[in-house]
Each structure stands twice: as C-alpha cells, then as structure tokens.
C-alpha cells in the first residue's frame, strides 16, 4: 500500500488561518464569552472545513479522514476555540446514516449518555456535552441508529479549557441506521487535537527556554531544562505520528486497536508533557496572560474524553490477554484484535 497523506496545501492554508485568527486574545475572549468567535467560525464554515472528510455527494466538502484530522491537528496547535471536532463528528454520523446535514454548528451526545429508545424516539439526558449551547442540533448514536435532538440545556457548564460543556435533556428522533462507531471517531478526533496542542506546547517551550535568561544565559543551556524540552518533543512526535498511523489504518477497515492505542498513548503523553512544559516555563506559564495554559488546559480537558488512559488500557489489555499473542497484535493490530 502506498503511503497516503493529508493534502499538503490544505494543511498549510488551515495552519496559516488558525495562526492568524487564533492569537492569545481571541482564545481568552472566547472563554470570557462562553462562545466561539463568530467571525472565525463563519470563515471556517465558509471554507467548508467543518465538513472535510465527508463526501460531496453526502453534503460534505470532500477530502479524506486524513485531511479532517490534519485540520483538527492545526486547530489544536492554536487552541482554536471552535466546535469544529464536534461539528465534523456529528456531520460524519449524519452522512453515514444518509441524513441531511444541517447548516451551522453541531454538538455530539457522548456515547456514554444513558438513553431510551422507543420506536424512532430517543429520550434521556447527557452530562457534559461539549459545545451544546450554540449548536443547531445534538447528534448521537444509540444501538446502531443515528438520532438528532433539539438543544435543550439543563445546566450550563465549561470544560477545563473554559469552553462550553453543558448538561442537556434529550428528546430526539432517529434519522437512520449507522455503522459508525462514535466512540472511536471521537477518540481519533480528540487525539488529533491533543497531538496539535502537544506540538504547540513543545514549540512554545523550546522557544521560551531559548529566550529566558537566568544566571547569565538562556535557561535552555542547562541540561536539566533541556530534558524537559526533549520530553516534550518526544511526546509530541509520538502523538502526531500515531494519529497519522491510526488514520491510515481506518482507510483499510475498522481500526479499534490503532485508535484506542493512539488515544491511550496520547492521554499519557499529554500528562507528561503538561508537567514538563510548565516546569520549564516556571511561574509565567502558570499565568492566564501567557499562552501555555490555553494549551495545557485543553490537554487536561481532552485527555479524559472518548475514553481515558485507564479505560482504554483496560479495553486493550483484556482483548490481548484473551487473544494471547502480544507481538502479533502490536504488528497486525485490528486485523486480529477487533
């Protein structure tokens, strides 16, 4: 199989867009507003970025899952305060179910929500739904059926990064059957965002220790500080590569092993990297006026969503113990572990 990659021009354009439009102040303002910056979101929608990875005939913007993940990676790098992953995921589910994709932002009902299905009616409640308020519709999957529900927020909240994360009541309707695994898709999307934030935290830290002077020299000259820089580069490189590999695996077929392994590894890397980045930065990294916390708070928020380090490890470990061949699984992944 030849090595497929994300569209390089698209990636460059999107990175440039977020770099320009998501400076520190924009992210801070979004947090204060409890909403996405309208202009930026309009621009993203205008470019169709929120529907990349969905075929044009299904109402999407075309492109592959690799393109979609590269966009999320770029958004993660700039801590973009947008319901981009949520809208992409919801739209993918709707497209897969053969349903219409509405305009505007969408939110996703977490796969862990407790729901009742009667006929084509879905009811229940869901806690901590990212970007619920402000979304046009809630989209979820239950028992292989995709459903939509109007947004009915019962309690407004925010996640660790200060982004909307609300409790909702669900009174929805089935719109079609879907084979899509929302848990896995979500884990992959979060992994891409996490990897982006890891890359940015790594770059920011390397840059900072090269400029910050103490004891008459940049602190990055000290081996003890270099160690943090190296740790960050390792965590980020492993994360980005793993997302790309998991994405390639999905092109061959269902890739539960690769996706879970990716998210499991990245969740742990996020923890290690956040510590290293803050330690290397010293006090300034702990302040809201400096960029780092916008990245590390996203690492904390995302690492616990769509499976956390322990849950994913347990799921993987239980299957491997039942299968009994560790090396074969590491090499062949989802071809032998479902």
């Amino acid at each position, binding site marked *: 199989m030849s090595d497929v990659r994300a569209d390089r021009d698209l990636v460059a354009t999107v990175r440039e867009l977020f770099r320009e439009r998501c400076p520190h102040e924009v992210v801070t303002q979004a947090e204060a507003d409890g909403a996405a910056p309208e202009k930026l979101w309009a621009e993203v929608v205008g470019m169709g970025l929120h529907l990349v990875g969905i075929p044009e005939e299904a109402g999407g913007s075309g492109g592959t899952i690799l393109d979609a993940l590269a966009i999320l990676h770029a958004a993660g790098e700039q801590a973009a305060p947008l319901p981009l992953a949520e809208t992409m995921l919801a739209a993918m589910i709707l497209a897969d179910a053969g349903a219409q994709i509405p305009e505007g932002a969408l939110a996703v009902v977490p796969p862990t929500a407790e729901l009742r299905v009667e006929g084509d009616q879905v009811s229940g409640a869901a806690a901590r739904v990212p970007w619920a308020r402000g979304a046009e519709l809630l989209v979820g999957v239950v028992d292989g059926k995709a459903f939509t529900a109007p947004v009915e927020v019962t309690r407004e909240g925010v996640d660790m990064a200060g982004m909307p994360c609300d409790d909702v009541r669900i009174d929805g309707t089935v719109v079609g059957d879907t084979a899509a695994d929302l848990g896995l898709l979500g884990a992959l999307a979060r992994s891409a965002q996490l990897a982006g934030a890891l890359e940015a935290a790594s770059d920011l830290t390397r840059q900072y220790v090269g400029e910050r002077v103490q004891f008459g020299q940049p602190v990055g000259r000290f*081996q003890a500080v*270099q160690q943090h*820089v190296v740790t960050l580069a390792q965590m980020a490189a492993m994360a980005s590569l793993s997302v790309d590999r998991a994405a390639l695996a999905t092109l061959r077929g269902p890739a539960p092993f690769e996706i879970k*392994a990716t998210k499991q590894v990245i969740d742990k890397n996020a923890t290690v990297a956040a510590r290293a980045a803050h330690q290397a930065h010293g006090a300034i990294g702990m302040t809201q006026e400096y960029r780092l916390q916008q990245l590390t708070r996203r690492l904390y928020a995302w690492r616990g969503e769509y499976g956390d380090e*322990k849950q*994913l490890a347990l799921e993987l470990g*239980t299957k491997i113990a039942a299968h009994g061949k*560790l090396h074969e699984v590491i090499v062949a992944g989802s071809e032998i572990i479902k």
Partner: protein
Amino acid sequence: MRLEATELTDDERALQQEVRSWLRKRLPVGSYPLGLGMSGEIDPEFSRDLGAQGWLGMALPTEYGGHGRTAVERLIVVEELLAVGAPVGFHWVGDRQSGPSIAKHGTEEQKRDLLPRIARGEVSFAIGMSEPDSGSDLASLRTRAVREGDGWRVNGTKIWTSGAYESTHILALFRTSEDKHTGLTQFIVPRETEGMSINKIPFIDGTRHFCEISFEDMYLPDSLRMGEVGGGWGQNTAELVLERGGVDRWMSVMPILENWATSRSVEGDAAAAADLGAIAARSWAFRGMSLSVARMVDEGKSPVTEAALIKEMATRFEQECTDIVARHYGRTPDLHSDDPHESLLARAILVSPSWSIRGGTNEILRTVISKGLNKR
C-alpha cells in the same frame, strides 16, 4: 519534529510471514536459550542459518554478497527475531552497524573480504569505543595509533566492550592526532592480532560477555584502517542512526511480555490487564517511530536526532516494562530458576539499567536531541 507515517507493502508483509514461519521451525519453543533482545545468546550456527536465508547483511550491496534490500525489510526480520528472544548475539553488531559502515567507508579490499562473510553470518564484530577515562565523552579517548612505516602502532585500553571475546573482529576507534574530533580514526582489528589481549569482565547478572581490551605495541598494517585518517568521529556519528533508532531499543523484554500476556496472572486482574494494554499501545507507537526512521534511511536521509529521540525514551520504556512485570510477579523471580521465563525476568531486572547506558547514555542523548531540535 514530524515523523511520516508509513505502512508495510504487500511484499514486506510477505517477508514478515516468511520469517515468522521459518523461525517457528528453526527455533521451536524451548529449544534454545531465550535472550534479551540484542544481547541474545551467541550461536554461530544459528547466525549462519540466518545468513543462508538471506536475512543478514540485507541492506548491503549485492556485489559484496549483500542482498540490496531496505532498512525496512531488515527491521521486519529483526523484530521477528527479537520477539522470540532469538540467539542473535554472534552476528548482531556486524549486521546492524559494522557491515553498513564498512560498505560506506571501507576500502574495496575490506568490502570484498568482510561484507560477504557478514552476510553469511561467519564473522562477529565488537565495537571498541569506550576507554577507562572516556565513556560518554568519547572525543577524549586516548588509545593511540601512531604511524610506523606502512602501518600503525597501537597502545592503550578499551573497556566495557560487549562480545569482544567471542568476536572475530573489533571495529575500534583510535586517536591518530591531538585534534579533539578530527584526530580519531577507525580500524578493523582481527581478533587474533598480536599485541591485543581481551579479558572478560563479569557482568552484573553473572554473564561474561563484557570485556576489556589491551593493546600493547600492537602493529596494524594501514590496510586495516577504515575510512579517512581523522574521519572516525563523523563515520561513527552516522553509524549511530543505525544503532539508535531501531526496534531493538524497545523489544528487549518482548519474550517476557509475551509470556506474561498469556499467563493466568493477567486474566481477571484489571490492574494487570490495564498495564498490558498500555504496554501494547506504547509498543505499537514505538514500532511506528522505528518504521518511520527506517523509511527515512531508505530515502537516503540521516535522521540522527530522530534516532536519538526514540532511543532515549524507548530504553526507559523497556525498563518500565521490566518493572511492571516484576511488580505483577508476586515474588522475587529466581535467576537460577528452571523456568526460562522466570530466570529471564530476573536477568532483565539486573541488566535493565544498562539499556539506557549502552549506545549513548540518556543524558548525552538529551544533549544530542536538544542541539538537533534547535538547529531546525
């Protein structure tokens, strides 16, 4: 630093299956002493058999008995060997780094003499780098080779050299001038050379593959010099990519993990299952990194920083895996147990600190990586 994702081609996957089924026949379970990765047992017969399959010197040029294959293909063979703890000790160093280094820097005569024999698994190399006063600060080494007629007169001592006693050749780095980095030159020293004596240094686990090499007025004809006079440092640095970025840096404990994964102790123990899952996930991620570096080598790149970055964390991971299995073992494993997996675990506990020392200590690697990152 971004590493490119890569997948195996159909041909590469076919090779994997071929190696796997050959190994099943050649090394039936229980028929050989299990090894810890690259420090697997020394078994010249196994090395020759592997050579006969065309799985040694794979990336060496065909005109010198090599197989003109890729770094990725070599990785595929190597990971199957390490997964079963195969006795790779005899050919390991020659196949991994001395062969490619000779192919790149050796004279025509050296290539004709040595490369076919490396590919056939008939010769065994040891790397003579560290000295009593030069470990991580390799540029400070003092063993001197002084010009004398058409050759060189060598005096000094190398130490902590793995596998020197059983080797047929030592690829050694000697000081040929006072210039710190450009005063180092590589030589290929045959084992039987007069003036060289090798003593074993018992290792922490009781094995005796660690050595000290003394050179007393050893005379080497200039034909044994490899590469330019003063070119040793640069040649050595390039060699490190081959030494550092491979799967051998996280697979030492694979036979132990494999045995543990299938043991009763994981079933029904959520803590153990979660540890196993985390190990599998991270192994998968490391494998991707090693594959990516191997593809870069095949594209003619020299990913020195990438290889160091992988080795620094992969060796810590192997150590952590050892600790995890030990933690779940329930008692102290017995080094002299009749159960080969138990004694292997005990050995892993004892020798695992060496993994983040050999091939460049983690502290030095961090400096290498840090410098590399800042150059980007």
